[in-house]
């Protein structure tokens, strides 16, 4: 085209970013890569090709790590870990700072390599991914520096196995590696097999930074290598990827004592209210679903528009789709790049082809003749019942429907198994701040979307996984309490001495406590409880599946509790303490009668203290306003987990229960308890205390019976959000394994004793809350 012609047509033309330096780097490495273990690259071994999805060309040959390689990497990480922790916060901060600086110095090389390997537009890798990577390392250099003072009582987990996806290869590496290293862990990381190159360049950067050998190890390969890492002798697994694989990892690590964080899939709602800046909301959608070709776990892929503006909004949206530019990801003037792999492309194609009773609208873009491209797509007129409204497509495909009222918007938004992110657009601050807390999501963006920062925790609820990345919550996932717990011995119930029951006493057979009422066990069976001398103390019901079902139902019905104020919850906890204190002697005697240890009075006293602690915290365990680099706030709001099933401790039948329940209540959770299996009567005696303390019905539900049976039903119940087990029965593996069903949060004791005598309320508060990050950019 001549300049005169362009002058008339005003076309954009090509604006390619040069890939010469990136190719030169690949060639310098021989275009073949080994693994990065113990500070050096191994000889390249048998492996696979890494391709550019935009052209199909082979970029390099990569090594498929073997079992031996993974073991060597873990061994190197294990050997390096004590020294790495030892150099202290400042020492680690200096290395993280050096890495951040090097990432900055080589930023364009990283960006171009990322785009070559992944197919995302160079604008995104250059302006979003790589700057966020740098920011993450800078931010965590600070966390390393502050660890000694701000993370007192916490220590590194040890060796962390990290498995990351292909959609943000270097960024996910940064999210995993930076906090792990900051807290004194060493890592074995596996990049996705489609996108390993920037991780290998990062390994090179680690060498340049003089990072001690073995602190960062990078092994390449497919899912089989991931499995090896999951099963290796590591202390933690951090995984970002699909919900299916996350579930498998949950099962595989069950009972191993390995810490686990999972950042999984999503079908995030994008809500547009009628008073929104519609044009801006549409531009936001471009960033929500056509960012990174929609291959984003938190992509706003489910559009919910208020009916009154739906037609206008969709008209504007279809118009906007016309100006999206798809093509060579290295072109600086391209919005939508290549799909990662033909396999993913086929999956997207198949899902879109399955759409029924709807309108499919695609951007009128010319698809390049080679490479793996899919046009931006809008599917209108779907209903929640349509599979495409429920299932993650992981491509540039937006599905949409309408709502009538804010309440319906929330209902539709939360009608999903996922809970990663949500976006809402309104100019009404009341509406925004009312809706944000109601959305089941770990991240909520108000009048914006896909905003990320190292200081703002990111992660999901429900089947989008658990654990947070970024902020202090992210650090918690890479540290543990410094104490060394003792093994927990099983606490068996006492047997009968077969003596005849003394006549004359009035029978008191405890029922279950469900929905604020005492309820007979569904099965109609009871069992006797004996004291240490074998004398009968009373009977308790044997809870079964139906009792669990009823209790969970009652807990759900009590959802109003989660909306009460901390002040009110504190009042009720104080009242509970008051009523328990009034009967302190009776409870102490009961405990002594059951355990024979004579510690009853001390246990009651400590329980009262725990109730006071929880009451104290109820209005003080505050969220944060994160210092994110925008004009606005990112609020870290602490929300109740929801409904929690708790298998109460046997060794401290009252204190164990109160220690766990009080903080859970303080944070607004509803609980279903399985009373101490061996000594259940302290729990059943509580019914009357609960009944007289203004606690709304269903907030606390207490079952008696076998921890194993009750625990199994609880942990499999798909409408329960978390299960904690302090049972002296060894159930940790079972619980973690079965929790994979709806990926509920678990806290198990792994056969280790918990020191109930110390006030550890904060640990319970932490487990009883989810952090929701609400991004609120502002400005008029």
């Amino acid at each position, binding site marked *: 085209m001549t300049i005169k012609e362009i002058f008339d047509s005003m076309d954009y033309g090509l604006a390619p970013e040069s890939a010469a330096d990136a190719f030169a780097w690949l060639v310098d490495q021989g275009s073949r890569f080994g693994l990065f273990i113990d500070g050096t690259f191994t000889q390249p071994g048998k492996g696979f090709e890494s391709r550019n999805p935009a052209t199909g060309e082979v970029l390099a040959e990569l090594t498929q790590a073997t079992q031996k390689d993974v073991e060597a990497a873990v061994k190197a990480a294990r050997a390096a870990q004590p020294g790495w922790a030892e150099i202290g916060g400042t020492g680690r901060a200096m290395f993280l700072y050096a890495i951040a600086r090097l990432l900055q110095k080589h930023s364009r090389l990283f960006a171009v390599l990322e785009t070559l390997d992944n197919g995302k537009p160079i604008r995104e890798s*250059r302006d979003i991914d790589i700057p966020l990577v740098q920011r993450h390392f800078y931010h965590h250099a600070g966390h390393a520096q502050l660890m000694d003072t701000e993370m007192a009582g916490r220590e590194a987990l040890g060796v962390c196995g990290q498995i990351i996806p292909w959609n943000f290869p270097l960024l996910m590496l940064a999210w995993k590696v930076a906090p792990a290293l900051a807290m004194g862990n060493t890592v074995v990381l596996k990049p996705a097999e489609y996108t390993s190159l920037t991780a290998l360049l990062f390994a090179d950067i680690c060498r340049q930074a003089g990072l001690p050998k073995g602190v960062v190890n990078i092994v390449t390969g497919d899912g089989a290598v991931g499995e090896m890492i999951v099963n290796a002798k590591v202390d933690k697994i951090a995984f970002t990827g699909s919900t299916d694989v996350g579930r498998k990892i949950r099962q595989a690590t069950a009972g191993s004592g390995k810490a686990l964080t999972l950042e999984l899939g999503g079908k995030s709602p994008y809500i547009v209210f009628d008073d929104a*800046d519609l044009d801006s909301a549409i531009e936001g959608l471009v960033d929500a679903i056509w960012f990174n070709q929609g291959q984003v776990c938190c992509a706003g892929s489910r559009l919910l528009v208020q009916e009154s503006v739906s037609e206008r909004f969709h008209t504007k949206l279809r118009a906007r789709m016309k100006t999206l530019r798809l093509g060579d990801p290295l072109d600086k003037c391209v919005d939508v790049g290549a799909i990662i792999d033909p396999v993913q492309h086929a999956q997207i194609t198949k899902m879109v082809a399955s759409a029924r009773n709807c309108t499919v609208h695609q951007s009128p873009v010319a698809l390049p003749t080679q490479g793996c491209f899919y046009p931006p797509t809008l599917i209108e007129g779907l209903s929640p019942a349509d599979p495409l409204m429920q299932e993650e497509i992981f491509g540039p495909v937006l599905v949409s429907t309408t709502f009538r009222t804010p309440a319906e918007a929330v209902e539709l938004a939360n009608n999903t198994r996922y809970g990663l992110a949500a976006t809402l657009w309104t100019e009404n601050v009341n509406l925004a701040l009312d809706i944000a807390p109601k959305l089941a999501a770990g991240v909520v963006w108000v009048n914006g979307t896909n905003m990320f920062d190292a200081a703002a925790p990111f992660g999901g609820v429900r089947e989008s996984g658990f654990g947070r990345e970024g902020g202090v919550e992210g650090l918690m996932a890479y540290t543990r309490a410094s104490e060394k717990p003792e093994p927990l011995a099983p606490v068996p119930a006492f047997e009968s001495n077969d003596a005849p029951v003394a006549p004359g006493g009035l029978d008191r057979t405890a029922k279950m406590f469900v929905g604020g009422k005492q309820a007979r066990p569904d099965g109609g069976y009871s069992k006797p409880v004996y004291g240490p001398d074998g004398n009968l103390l009373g009977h308790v019901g044997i809870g079964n599946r139906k009792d669990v079902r009823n209790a969970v139902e009652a807990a759900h019905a009590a959802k109003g509790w989660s909306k009460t104020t901390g002040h009110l919850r504190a009042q009720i906890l104080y009242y509970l303490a008051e009523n328990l204190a009034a009967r302190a002697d009776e409870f102490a005697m009961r405990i002594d009668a059951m355990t024979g240890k004579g510690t009853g009075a001390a246990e009651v006293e400590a329980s009262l203290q725990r109730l006071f602690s929880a009451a104290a915290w109820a209005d003080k365990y505050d969220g944060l306003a994160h210092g994110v680099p925008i004009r606005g706030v990112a609020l870290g709001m602490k929300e109740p987990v929801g409904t929690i099933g708790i298998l109460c401790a046997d060794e401290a039948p009252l204190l164990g229960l109160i220690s766990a329940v009080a903080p859970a209540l303080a944070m607004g959770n509803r609980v279903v308890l399985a009373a101490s299996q061996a000594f259940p009567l302290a729990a059943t005696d509580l019914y009357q205390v609960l009944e007289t303390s203004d606690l709304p019905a269903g907030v606390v539900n207490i079952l008696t019976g076998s921890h194993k049976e009750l625990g199994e039903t609880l942990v499999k119940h798909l409408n329960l959000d978390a299960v904690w087990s302090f049972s002296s029965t060894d159930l940790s593996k079972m619980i973690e394994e079965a929790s994979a069903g709806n990926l509920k949060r678990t806290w198990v004791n792994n056969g280790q004793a918990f020191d109930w005598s110390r006030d550890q309320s904060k640990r319970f508060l932490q487990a009883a809350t989810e952090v929701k990050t609400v991004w609120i*950019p502002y*400005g*008029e």
Partner: protein
Amino acid sequence: MDSQIADNGAPTPVKAPADQAAASVANASHGGLPRNPGMPLDLDWALGIEANTSAIERRCASLPGRRTVKKDHQAAWLLKAVTCIDLTTLAGDDTDARVQRLCAKARQPVRADILSDLGMSKITTGAVCVYHDMIPAAVRALHGTDIPVAAVSTGFPAGLSPFHLRVEEIRESVKAGAREIDIVISRRHVLTGNWQALYDEMKAFREACGEAHVKAILATGELGTLRNVARASMICMMAGADFIKTSTGKEGVNATLPVSLVMIRAIRDYYERTGVHVGYKPAGGISKAKDALVYLSLMKEELGNRWVQPDLFRFGASSLLGDIERQLEHHVTGAYSAGYRHPMA
């Protein structure tokens, strides 16, 4: 289509002999398109517009990273930018000779050898923009071209002279030969929410312009919020503005990308509902070739190709041309240029 507009030239090469073709492209006032007839004041519509500042700023901040033009495309776009410039002098010390110099530059904004190396025929700037008293000098100096003279009017820049004098000023300027009138709105009508008064004022100005095209200067830097900018844009269009323009160049803050995005979206909204094309003119503070390219891409992205022509888009700028000239010479020679190599205005 009235004769005035036809005289102003259309971007279509209907009438022009070869040597005039480029000039006619450049000098279009509203070529080929019907003028905005205006419409009754619709406050539900105007006041229903929302403008989320943060989101608008984000869009503007990311646009230069999303769109870029290189090499020949960049040169062609810069040439287009030249044809969209309202070459302006609005100084108290303006003289006839000074205006004459400016007009000479408007006739030949880019050195002939550079144009020839770029394979382009003659181009001119979009208009020359002066105060009322300078109109005769400008008209004389531009005689024989299709370059319109634009006059700032209505008590520019504050717009606080008596209303009848402001209306009369328009008439005088049109009589003196101005084919485009840049009026200033009464900011107080916006700030006090007196939308009817704003509409009536604009309508009166438009009527006084007669065949001359009217650009409504909103003085966005004094309107307080982007929402006000959006509302004022819409109401001025309803009252018949042919162009909406950001600034006088005399406010503390003049043209910005966020303000532009809001005004451009208002233009789009108006077009979507009425089918009428209204032009856009950012003014003040645009002095770099690179900025001009971003503005052009903003227009193209939000409004489409039709709006990156001088009949619908103008830059109000005085120093922008110099930077573009240097960039164009760089394109031709591969060497960075110097200001003194290009004839001054």
